[in-house]
């Protein structure tokens, strides 16, 4: 047999690439966290893992790209600056959020609600989710092809700071800051608003919440909508960073975001943030040590290990306990 080492461990690479990998990990991790919130909200209220959430994210990426096309931005156009840049970013993000949010609501209405009505077993819900996922991916593949669709570069990405090889760029800052801001907004919304209180009440005890006058259907739609909006924003940010769209672009980020949600404690909003950032950084460190092609295996392994040893995640499962 060959002398090849299956996992060529490279610890020097780790120390060399520590800062670059950490910065990139935090950037991508923030996006994972945004997607993870969708899993967490729906799980908190329905105890359902919405496998099709990755496709909601994918729709966001496409919607962001198409809104740029609609604004007449071509692949070869020069990068925007100033007010034009702000307008493009706001419009494309809003389009992505809207498209994803609506898709999520429609999905709940058409596919999940009939199952919920007759109290179908979980297996049915999971199979439905897989069906939706396949359907949406293939719909986009058939309409827009199976190849990469490039994004126009709307934003210059100069190096602002080079910290031990870690390149800090405006787009990374933008992604990280807006992801965190959205998450704080969501956390406040769930903790403070009346509708947020409905969500928390339903998450703790749906039956009692219903008896106390909470409209469960509305709460469910709201959670799908919120999850969809955030996934759409994540899609727009992801597109800005990686600059491509593809029918199966949601698959890996979707699974990783789920891993992040579980890692932080599914059903827990702050946990999703913590889990997303942790997973983003961990998988980048892992790819530094093991080589980039093992990155995804590493993320899956993290998922298995977390589920084996601490299935309730770092912060525990508790949407209902999100406090003001």
């Amino acid at each position: 047999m060959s002398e090849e080492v299956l996992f060529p461990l490279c610890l020097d690479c780790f120390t060399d690439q520590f800062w670059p990998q950490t910065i990139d990990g935090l950037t991508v991790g923030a996006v994972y966290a945004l997607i993870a919130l969708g899993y967490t909200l729906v799980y908190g209220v329905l105890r359902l893992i919405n496998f099709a959430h990755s496709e909601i994210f994918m729709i966001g990426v496409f919607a962001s790209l198409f809104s740029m096309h609609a604004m007449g931005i071509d692949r070869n156009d020069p990068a925007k600056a100033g007010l034009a840049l702000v307008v493009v970013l706001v419009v494309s993000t809003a389009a992505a959020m809207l498209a994803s949010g609506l898709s999520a609501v429609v999905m709940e209405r058409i596919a999940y609600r009939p199952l919920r009505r007759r109290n179908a077993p979980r297996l049915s819900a999971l199979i439905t989710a897989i069906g939706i996922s396949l359907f949406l991916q293939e719909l986009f593949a058939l309409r827009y092809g199976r190849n990469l669709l490039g994004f126009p570069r709307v934003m210059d990405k100069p190096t602002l700071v080079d910290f031990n090889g870690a390149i800090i760029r405006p787009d990374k800052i933008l992604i990280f800051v807006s992801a965190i801001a959205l998450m704080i907004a969501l956390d406040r919304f769930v903790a403070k608003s009346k509708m947020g209180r409905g969500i928390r009440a339903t998450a703790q005890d749906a039956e009692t919440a219903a008896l106390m006058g909470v409209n469960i259907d509305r709460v469910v739609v709201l959670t799908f909508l919120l999850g969809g909006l955030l996934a759409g924003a994540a899609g727009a940010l992801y597109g800005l960073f990686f600059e491509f769209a593809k029918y199966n672009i949601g698959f890996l980020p979707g699974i990783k975001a789920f891993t992040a949600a579980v890692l932080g404690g599914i059903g827990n909003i702050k946990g999703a943030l913590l889990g997303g950032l942790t997973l983003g950084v961990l998988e980048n460190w892992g790819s530094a040590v093991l080589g980039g092609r093992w990155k995804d295996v590493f993320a899956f392994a993290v998922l298995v290990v977390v589920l084996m040893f601490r299935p309730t995640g770092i912060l525990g499962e508790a949407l209902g306990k999100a406090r003001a």
Partner: protein
Amino acid sequence: MSGMPWARSVRSTLRRYSPVEFVGRLWERQNNITKLFVCILLFAFAAWFPLTLELKWQGVLFFPVAVYILLALGLNIVVGQAGLLDLGYVAFYAVGAYTAAKLTTTSEWSMWQVLPISIAMAMLAGVLLGGPTLRLRGDYLAIVTLGFGEIVRIVAQNTGALGESRGITGIPHPSNVGGLEFLFDPVPYYHLTLAAIVVTILMKVRLNRSRIGRGWIAIREDEDAAEVMGVPTFKLKLWAFAVGAAVGGLAGWIYAGKTSFISPDNFPFFLSVLILAAVVLGGMGSIPGVIAGAFLIAFIPEWLRGIPAGKDVLDVLNKAIGGHASDINEYRQFLFGLALVLVMIFRPQGLLPSRRRAAELHEATSPEGMGAVVVEQTSGEPEAELGVDQLLGGEEASVPIEAIEEPAEVKAAEFGETVLELQNVKMVFGGVTALNDVSLAVRQGQIFGIIGPNGAGKTTLFNCVTGVFRATDGDILLDGKSIIGKRPHLICRAGVARTFQNIRLFPDMTALENVLVGTDADHHASVPGVLAGTPRYYREERHGRTEAERLLEFVGVHHRADDAARNLPYGDQRRLEIARAMATRARVLLLDEPAAGMNPSEKQDLVQLIRNIRAVGLTVVLIEHDMSLVMQVCDEIAVLDFGEKIAQGVPADIQSDERVIQAYLGVPADAS
């Protein structure tokens, strides 16, 4: 807005006019010989038909269809039987194929020689995946298996020894056997796959009729109750994974031998989903259904591709969704994704369902369902009402005392040795102490009552004894041996069985099957033993059946033996649960509020039943709120209040005990 009535009407129309239902009923009426004959005929036809086709390409099609069917049958054991959603099934297919490819291309071994190794490696992969993950809840398990499938594919893609993304080429064909020449003609491979399908079906049918298959169904319907009734849930789930994986590995071996070339691209995630779609579309758990589902998924796209009308179908589809596909095959995943969603809405039981699964999939039977409201399960105490006058034997007592012979004052010495002993048992949940320093000794042949107000810790005590909870401190001895920390099924096998406060039968199993699951606690036929048909297996099956029938008669439910447990009247369900617990050959029977919800005449029968149970030599521990029943039937009573034992003694003493009366009535205001 209210609840999609159209979905329901479509469902019922489908049910009423489906030819499938008609054939299904016809089939049920045939005897076994006819059934066997029809099956043989069908398979003979399946084997012979491709030979009659003149066009070679038509024959080519049969091989992939058969491989799909084989894979779907394998996955069906995992998803359809044991109810474990495996989204990475293709990994086992890949392991079988890669094992065969690697060994035959780097050693002198022939394809036939590596066949057992391929299957064994796939099984090993199944056990490696299942071992750490099978304790996870259903949806977590699904996503972990998905991850596992991807890990296997990426490892193959990244490993030099496995050819990376180039894959492995030059895999030899199997050498010829019995007139089948394995070269480039696909028909012999098709026959080989057909043989594998027959073996898989026989295996499934056989396992289904044994304690293994019953255990799988029990796990699917109520895993916790199954464990407490002596079903080794973890082991059986692992076996489901291993058997399913073995079939996947076999399919992989066949595939590698046929194509001589495999690469990671042959084992994408979507293949797992397509196989799952086949299982779901056809009807989980039903063999004809799964075959039909796999046939649809593998055959229809290819068939449409071959006929001229296929072009029109393609145009219509392209126009409908604005697609640009040039080949109908590109629509395969799209349409089957859509089909999965529609089937779950309109016909969750699939096209050709098995009877039992139809009921289960339509509505959740366990509290695991995805309800409009999520009902959290609490481990707390029941909301049973307790009248004060019941305690004090007042006129509202629901069992007229004079109707039953007053039990003679029983002296402690009349009973045998201590069978069940609790020593200073303590159970703490977070900051709540549910049981504090409880010590009890129950002696052989006793009817031992445990009473106390709601929240006193009575059910928690049962949960500690049966191993559902692990007591925080103290010891629990059965025949002098500690049973603390043992898994519930082992405690059951050691001789403690219970019933549940909120009845937890396996709702879609028949009454007889419910009791058979109980008898299996004492049976040990293994999966290989069942498959080989060892004498022990047959002996145990015969013994189980006689025993189950006897017990059904003992509790008086024998006239409903073949009805699904969920259709039994309430009182019968309670009695059936007792029969199931007795079937485990337990020596100590824990009854958790057996009289709850019973009317006076049913309670009367229950008193007699409990006495009969003692008469056949069992020891009974009874939690009950109906005081007059407790006072009548119990030899000794322990009273719990706020997790502490406040009194113990014969019924007469308990009735006059100050602390007991205070516990129920509260402390009088003038007491200091």
